[in-house]
């Protein structure tokens, strides 16, 4: 199976094709979309994008971890983590297309 990596440039190209803006402006808009999502998350907000999914910031409590190499116990400090919850629309879109292609 040949797997490709999609990057910002591909997203900018999609924007360029969808709306008649310049490539430069398309690329800037992709950047702003990612920045605005990031800023909302950093501000502690969840970001819900209907039919795509939602990004949530979760708080993790402190717990005791262990260095697997030395067996030493180390505290893992309380922290915030970012999780993505795909929407059912996205999940079924991916699942259907992948199972069909037999990859």
């Amino acid at each position, binding site marked *: 199976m040949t797997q490709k990596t999609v990057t910002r440039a591909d997203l900018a190209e999609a924007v360029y094709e969808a*709306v008649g803006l310049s490539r430069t402006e398309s690329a800037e808009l992709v950047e702003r979309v990612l920045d605005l999502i990031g800023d909302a998350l950093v501000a502690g907000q969840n970001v819900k994008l209907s039919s*795509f999914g939602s990004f949530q910031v979760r708080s993790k409590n402190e717990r005791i971890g262990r260095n697997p190499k030395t067996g030493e116990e180390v505290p893992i400090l309380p922290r915030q983590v970012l999780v993505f919850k795909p929407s059912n629309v996205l999940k079924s879109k991916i699942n259907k297309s992948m199972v069909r292609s037999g990859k």
Partner: protein
Amino acid sequence: MIKSELVQRLAEENPHLFQRDIENIVNAILDEVGDAMARGDRVELRGFGAFSVKNRPARVGRNPRTGETVDVGEKYVPQFKAGKEIRERINRAG
């Protein structure tokens, strides 16, 4: 923040664009990410994160209530791993 609020904010920053165009732009981006995953591709957005597709092989499951075995078919599930930069920013803020 929901999609319409994101569109609203972008519209304020880009008064020369129609709100309809902004909606198309946001949807084009999200569709491109979704389409890529539907092809089994990986989407890597430095600083933000990476989307990928993971295979869950078929397995024999069990109904926990009745103990009955059920065949669970092969599945493909989307995955997201937050990028380093956003992970650090979220922690500093929290």
